[in-house]
């Protein structure tokens, strides 16, 4: 029943899911950094930065991911000539473009999750830190963000799981990850339901342990108030 899977070795089923994992990890790290910066902008005392952060989040999270990913290929690469340091290697070029698109999109959600965490920190703490003479970035780095992160592990786990599944959109610009292999198999094998089940199972294997682990972590690290 599953013998058709052995027809695929470049990429194999595991190889394709490995690309999915790589997309997820790179995009997760990137969007965590960019999202934190955005959240810092949104709570900063500088009106221009607050405005930029708000505008970015509200625009980007309301654009469909497919549009963003296709734009990195048709817009950035084709029209503006962005090559991401790999003009002659399509595999690397489109992988990096996909990561760029995923980071840009996911960061908006990360930012909102972190901002909600910042709001859980009692405002008296920030005021006390200011009274001690700490600067804005010191207040954020030393007092507010460490507590904020601990309270948003749960919401961030949701974002990470959504990101894992969103990597399938990278297939639209030809990144050879799981969804692309699925398309190839459906094209060749005429076994839509079975193939769909195999890939759905693969994603459950990726996301279920992530969710359980982060859920446990968020309970362990929650700030008791």
């Amino acid at each position, binding site marked *: 029943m599953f013998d058709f899977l052995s027809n695929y070795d*470049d990429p194999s089923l595991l190889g394709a899911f490995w690309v999915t994992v790589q997309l997820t990890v790179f995009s997760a790290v990137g969007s965590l950094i960019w999202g934190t910066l955005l959240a810092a902008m949104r709570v900063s005392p500088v009106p221009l930065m607050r405005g930029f952060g708000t505008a970015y989040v509200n625009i980007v999270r309301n654009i469909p991911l497919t549009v963003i990913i*296709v734009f990195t*290929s*048709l817009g950035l*690469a*084709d*029209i503006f000539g962005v090559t991401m340091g790999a003009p*002659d*290697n*399509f*595999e690397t070029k*489109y992988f990096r473009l996909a990561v760029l698109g995923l980071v840009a999109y996911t960061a908006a959600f990360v930012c909102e999750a972190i901002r909600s965490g910042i709001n859980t920190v009692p405002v008296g703490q920030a005021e006390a830190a200011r009274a001690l003479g700490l600067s804005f970035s010191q207040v954020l780095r030393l007092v507010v963000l460490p507590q904020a992160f601990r309270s948003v592990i749960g919401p961030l786990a949701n974002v990470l799981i959504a990101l894992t599944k969103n990597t399938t959109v990278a*297939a*639209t*610009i*030809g990144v*050879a990850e799981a969804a*692309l*292999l*699925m*398309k*190839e198999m*459906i*094209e*060749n*094998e*005429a076994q*839509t339901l079975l193939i769909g089940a195999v890939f759905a199972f693969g994603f459950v294997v990726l996301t279920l342990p992530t969710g359980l682990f982060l859920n446990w972590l968020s309970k362990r690290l929650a700030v008791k108030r």
Partner: protein
Amino acid sequence: MKLRKVTAASAAVFALALTATACGGGDSGDSGSSSGGGDKIKIGIKYDQPGLGLKEPDGSFSGFDVDVATYVAKELGYEPNQIEWVETKSADRENALSRGDVKLIAATYSITDERKEKVDFAGPYLLAHQDLLVAADSDISEATDLNDKKLCSVTGSTSAQNVKEDFAPDAQLSQRGGYSECLSALQNGQVDALTTDDSILAGYAAQDQYKGKFKLAGLKLSNENYGVGVKKGDTETVNKVNDALEKMVSDGSWQKAVEENFGPANYKNEPAPKIGQIVQ
């Protein structure tokens, strides 16, 4: 007590709804399987491939697959206004037939062994080859010089897989959502060639906005035998469609349809394939 009444009433409504829909399903199934003289025939085509199956902005349909299907439907006893066109994307084709959503499929449907396990094929009605569409001034003419080229094809398609596995494993392959996206990349020089079946390429090159800009390289990289998909086990329909296809070739409508749809673009069509003769 009141609650029970409501439950009974809603159960009755629910049961009625179930039986009513069951009736409806049965009816449409019947009209689908009765051949000739019926009210409608549902035929699956592609909506997005100029030259083969294309839904025009005004809602009409054009292309070689459409012409073949119209001719076959006429031989089965359906006038063009009795045809209901249904979009069948590549991944949906087997299921659409086995569920009975469509009676026939003429949608660039290559006959392969894997597919023959799921559906029956009439035809083939066209022998296509994988080929390259290149800029009009390009000098690509042989398959051997493809490994240092940049190619474009549609994500997951057979053509894209052939490039990776067979004739140019070292070529840079950009896989995209549709052929139009590849054409825009070809137009601004991001890729050297767009590769898929020559019939599809010819259809694109024949579009008004691209006339004279692109040409076919004329490489025969693979053989694709387009057949008409029919529900598994429906031998009667297969035979009727085969008869219709033979008649279409013998009375010249086939050649006329080929020239109309693939005309400009340096496309030299193969002679009409014999029914049941599959070129490997």
